[in-house]
Each structure stands twice: as C-alpha cells, then as structure tokens.
C-alpha cells in the first residue's frame, strides 16, 4: 500500500488500513521507544500512544515527507516527552527517597546486596552504567545513536527523520560512540 492510499484510508478511519500500518511499524517503533526509555512496558505504552496519535492527527500530516518519517518523528518526540516527565517525577521522588533512605540507614545500617553471581552482577552494573551513559549524551547524538543502533536504520534514513544531512548524522553517531566509549572506560577505571 502506498503512502497516498494509507493517508486516504486513515482519513476515512478505515480499520484495515490502520491495522496494516500498525502491523508494518509496531516492531520498529517499539524498538525506537525502547532505545530511549529502556523499559519494555513503558516502550509499549509509548508505542501505543504513537499509533493513537497517528490515527487522530492524520489530517495534520502535510505530506511533505514519507509516512515512515512522520511515524518515527512522533515516536522520538513522545519518547523524549516521556523522559522529560519521568525526570521531573524522579527529582521529586528522589528527594523523598533520600529522606526515607537516610532514616532506614540510620536505624539498620547500610544493607548490602550479596553478590551471589559476580559475573551477572557485573553485567547488570555495566548495563546500568551504559544506560546512564546513553541518557547523558547530547540530545541529537542520543537520537541519532538510538535510531541507528536500536532500529538498524541506515544513516540516510536517520538523516531524513532528523532533517539533517548524511555527513551531519555520521558525525553525530561517531561522536556518540566515542562519548560512550569514554564513559565506559572511566567506569572501568572507577571514575564514573
């Protein structure tokens, strides 16, 4: 089904067309969202919201890009908005948690989790550091890296979604990888 037929079908609220669209993009959009939020449940929720947004806002689509580009842009924006809200909630709850933790530590002493499987524990810790490192990338580097790594997008596709030139995208992804490498090495040296 070409883009024009999809737009007409969505505008007519044709369920078959919508179903086809969801089937075509659901996995990719899920991976994109997962690359940002690193939580499968949240990624699924955001992906669902992406398709709801498409269904309701098809009349806002100007037709100046491919449908796939539009879909990915909505996914990126929704993921970033979700993270922004999460950060606000985290800031509030982390202050509350700080007080309750301090109270528990004062009463019981610091509780250490026994490392039963050292390799598993180290991998888990590395995963945490990796996610923290990806989250700390500058916005455009993060978007380019996530689309390229989690969606297997070619640089040309990333460039279209981000509305940039291919060399600009190459540079962003290259810098993102070097930044991540630097942060992981610092972790290993005990400085991160």
């Amino acid at each position, binding site marked *: 089904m070409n883009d024009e037929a999809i737009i007409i079908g969505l505008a007519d609220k044709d369920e078959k067309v919508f179903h086809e669209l969801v089937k075509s993009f659901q996995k990719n959009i899920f991976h994109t969202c997962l690359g940002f939020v690193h939580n499968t449940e949240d990624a699924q929720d955001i992906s669902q919201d992406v398709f709801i947004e498409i269904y309701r806002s098809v009349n806002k689509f100007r037709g100046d890009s491919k449908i796939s580009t539009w879909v990915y842009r909505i996914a990126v924006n929704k993921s970033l908005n979700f993270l922004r809200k999460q950060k606000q909630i985290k800031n509030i709850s982390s202050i509350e948690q700080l007080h309750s933790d301090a109270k528990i530590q004062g009463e019981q002493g610091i509780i250490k989790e026994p490392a039963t499987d050292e390799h598993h524990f180290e991998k888990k810790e590395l995963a945490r550091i*990796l996610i923290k490192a990806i989250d700390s990338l500058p916005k455009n580097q993060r978007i380019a890296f996530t689309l390229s790594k*989690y969606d297997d997008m070619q640089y040309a596709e990333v460039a279209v979604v981000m509305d940039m030139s291919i060399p600009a995208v190459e540079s962003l992804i290259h810098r993102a990888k070097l930044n991540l490498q630097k942060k992981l090495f610092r972790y290993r040296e005990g400085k991160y």
Partner: protein
Amino acid sequence: MNCKRIKKNLIFLAEKSLPENEEKLLLNHIKNCPACKEKYELLKTAENIISEERSAELNPYFYSTVTGKLGSAEVNHQTEYKPAWIRIANGSMLIAIIAAAVILGFSLGKNDSKYLSAKQSFNQSSNGFHTEYNVTDKKPTISIPLY
C-alpha cells in the same frame, strides 16, 4: 600501532564496523596487550547488552490494546471537543459572574462602612423605648428599659 590509537577504535571493532584490514591489525594488537584486551571485552559486553535489549518481544495483543485505548480516547475526544464559540461564551459568562460578585461585594462593604467611621449614639424616646445606634454594630439594637 600504539595503545592510544587502538583505544580510539575499540568501540568500532566491538560492533564490527571497521574495514577488514584495520580489524585484523587491532585484533593482532589485542592478542598481545592485556590492557586493550580488557577494554575491548568491556565494549563487547556493552554491545551484547544492547543486542539483548533489542531482542525484547512486543506484546502479541499490541494492536487490540491500541484499538481498545483508541476507543476510549476517541470517545473522550468527542465528548471533550466543543466548538470555539461555546468555549468563548463559557469563558465570558464566568468572567461576568466573577465581576458581578466583586461589585456586589464592594457595594455591601460600602453600606457597612456607615457603621464603622465614628461612634455616635442617639437616644430617642418613643413610647418608653430607647433606640441606640452604635456605630460599631452592623445593625441597630433596641433596648427595652425596665421600670
């Protein structure tokens, strides 16, 4: 090839995105350099972590969840949506009610101020009743004298 130059390209080696000849050079160096090897292993593990994350499966009921949410979202969208003129009229009415309440409040306050400016008392005898106007009270009080 020195370690500094090798270190810069380890992440590209870990994700296998280097040209073949450069890959061979780096792998050769790593075989004989424990420090670089350790870093390479770290990056390979990170690469595996991302691959594992990517292999997460989507809920098989994804589409039905979307249509389920869409059903209630569509309903909410329809019930919440009102034409612009209704929204403007509602807003104007609210402003008018607030303005009326403020004006009424001011006018009531003005009447009360007659009793707050100074203390004056007037005694009027009329059929044996005293009538006192106490400027601190809001209402006049009538006292019945006991003879």
